């Protein structure tokens, strides 16, 4: 499951979706809005998505993780819109019988989402400016 969310990510609710008697290892990764980036003080940010393609590409990444790793469940939710400091920007949850697969799949999903899913971050800085981030690949 890959989803975009316009409201705050409810980690408790998402976590309850990761329970099963076959699960030996559960991993949750959260990317959060932090107060600094490359030396500049960040006071908030916004995410914009090309929603149709983001959903398709995100779902493809989840499917790839299921094929590559011996996992049970995998899900990712990414925020869009305006976020405050400390808010969760992206949530990834994975369960598996064993921790090797859970760690590897969780890492795969967040890395691929960051690299491939058409979502863009605009940071708002304390000095007043806002900037879209378009990192070199």
């Amino acid at each position, binding site marked *: 499951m890959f989803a975009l969310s316009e409201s705050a990510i409810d980690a408790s609710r998402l976590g309850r979706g990761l329970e099963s008697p076959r699960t030996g290892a559960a991993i949750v990764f959260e990317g959060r809005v932090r107060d600094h980036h490359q030396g500049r003080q960040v006071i908030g940010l916004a995410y914009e998505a090309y929603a149709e*393609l983001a959903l398709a590409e995100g779902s493809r990444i989840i499917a790839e993780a299921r094929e590559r790793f011996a996992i049970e469940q995998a899900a990712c939710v990414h925020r869009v819109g305006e976020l405050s400091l400390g808010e969760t920007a992206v949530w990834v949850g994975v369960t598996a019988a064993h921790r090797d697969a859970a760690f590897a799949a969780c890492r795969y999903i967040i890395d691929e989402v960051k690299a491939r899913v*058409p979502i863009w971050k605009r940071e708002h800085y304390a000095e007043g400016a806002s900037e*879209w981030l378009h990192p070199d*690949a």
Partner: protein
Amino acid sequence: MNFTLRYFASLRDAAGCAEEQVASAAETPAALYAEAAARHGFTMPLARLRVAVNGAFAHADAALHDGDEVVFLPPVSGG
């Protein structure tokens, strides 16, 4: 041919719109981007962009068809 162009992030800011309808003789996304870059003053080179046609990633030299929705995607920064 008639195309719908959509813009996101810094390209949207530069274009001043999220979407525009254009009539163009461009046969590929690459050619269409050259026209849009000239019209809007985009400075980002095509090499840094990915292209999507009708909601799926596509090659910049793919053949376009009348009515296609074409999107130029600047480097992503989710997560």
